[in-house]
């Protein structure tokens, strides 16, 4: 246990979770947030808690985090709007169904639920899917949360000091605020998502813009988070604009509709062409969406890294600076695992999972 002082920059879900974990392990915590706790990408995203097995590193962090969300959410479901609805990954052909079948043993080996659905089971769960689909993969342990509220709650537990300000520079042993004030600390954690390069320009982070639509209230229209199997292929592994079918039931009965990804768009307007492509993709899988009324559309920015894994750990060349950013579209899920990893590294205690794949040093040449 230390009684050292840490400054965390960024009160999104990642910064708030890190504050929570560091405070619990003895740190005195100051959080600097320029807007409100749980704004930015935390407020713009879907709030899905999802275990993804597309790479060993991604699976280790998401599976660990899914368990942590389960514990947090079950203990206080109203605060987090924790809804353990599970995910159904929809296969669009027999090849994707075979891919789904191959995933089941991976999940079971990690101690997680996974169930292959044939067509009959798929339509029993989600009758609004278009006819003719061969089946899918159901991951019952996945959940939906309200991330802005979770971020606020996590921060409230710390008893730390909140400063509403913009950080203009990092320096050895602390930060400089926009009004010229200097704050010193034993450690600084940078958790500003896609804006991390404002303060550390060399970081390999690119903003990836997304659009979301929310509908009026249609309880029971869908029962799970429902996404196409091609989501990861379409969404994560390419450099070009992409869309993928991904819909989510909110506790209010509303439906969140996504998703799309665009690199190097730095303005937040809704792009009607991209939005049209996204909705068209969703209608291909769920035609009845066309009968629903949407009430709002907005955009946000994911913090993307070249290898799709976040940056968690010490900056290799700036002593005292720790990174917790680059979570792409998985920041809600992986915030809790990230916080545990970062705190373990900062406290020199054993982490729950191997931190190596997420260390920022992988992107820096040794000097």
């Amino acid at each position, binding site marked *: 246990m230390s009684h050292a002082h840490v400054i965390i920059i960024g009160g999104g879900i990642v910064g708030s979770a890190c504050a929570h974990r560091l405070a619990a392990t003895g740190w005195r915590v100051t959080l600097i947030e320029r807007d409100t706790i749980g704004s930015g990408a935390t407020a713009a995203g879907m709030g899905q808690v999802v275990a993804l097995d597309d790479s060993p590193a991604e699976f280790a962090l998401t599976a660990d985090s899914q368990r942590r969300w389960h514990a947090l959410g079950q203990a206080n479901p109203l605060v987090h709007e924790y809804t353990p609805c599970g995910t159904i990954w929809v296969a669009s052909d027999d090849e994707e169904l075979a891919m789904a079948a191959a995933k089941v043993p991976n999940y079971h080996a990690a101690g997680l639920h996974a169930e292959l659905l044939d067509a009959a089971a798929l339509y029993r769960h989600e009758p609004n899917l278009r006819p003719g689909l061969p089946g899918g993969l159901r991951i019952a342990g996945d959940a939906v949360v309200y991330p802005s509220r979770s971020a606020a709650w996590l921060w409230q537990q710390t008893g730390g000091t909140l400063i509403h300000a913009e950080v203009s520079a990092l320096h050895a042993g602390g930060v400089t605020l926009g009004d010229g004030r200097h704050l010193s600390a034993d450690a600084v954690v940078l958790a500003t998502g896609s804006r991390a390069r404002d303060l550390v320009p060399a970081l390999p982070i690119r903003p990836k813009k997304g659009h979301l639509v929310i509908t*009026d*209230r*249609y309880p029971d229209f869908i029962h799970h988070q429902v996404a196409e199997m091609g989501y990861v292929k379409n969404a994560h592994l390419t450099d070009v604009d992409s869309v993928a079918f991904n819909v989510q039931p909110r506790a*209010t009965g509303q439906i969140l509709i996504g998703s799309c990804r665009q690199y190097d768009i730095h303005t937040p307007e809704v792009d009607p062409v991209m939005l049209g492509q996204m909705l068209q993709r969703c209608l291909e899988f769920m035609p009845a969406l066309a*009968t*629903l*009324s949407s*009430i709002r559309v907005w955009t946000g920015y994911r913090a993307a890294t070249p290898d799709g894994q976040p940056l968690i750990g010490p900056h290799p060349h700036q002593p005292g600076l720790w990174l917790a950013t680059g979570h792409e579209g998985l920041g809600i899920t992986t915030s809790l695992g990230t916080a545990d990893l970062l705190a373990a590294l900062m406290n020199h205690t054993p982490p729950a999972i191997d931190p190596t794949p997420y260390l920022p040093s992988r992107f820096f040449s040794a000097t």
Partner: protein
Amino acid sequence: MATITVFINNHPYACDASTSVAGAIAQATHQLGATRQSVHGMPRTMLCGMGICFECRVTINGNAHQLACQTPVEAGMHITYWEGADA
């Protein structure tokens, strides 16, 4: 003036073919009573008549949350609105 029949809460009603669903409800009930409930159970009714306030949402042919004031009536249309707890 052409007249058509619509079904308002399952009752057939003959109305002007050129009116809106909101107009048909108002004519059928001779009043502007509550037509839906808020999330917290408060009565709501059509207000602006021009598609802005979203207070006139009703179910039309099974599709929920349709704007009554922006939807022309059609022959045989089924219109369902909330008639209140004691209706």
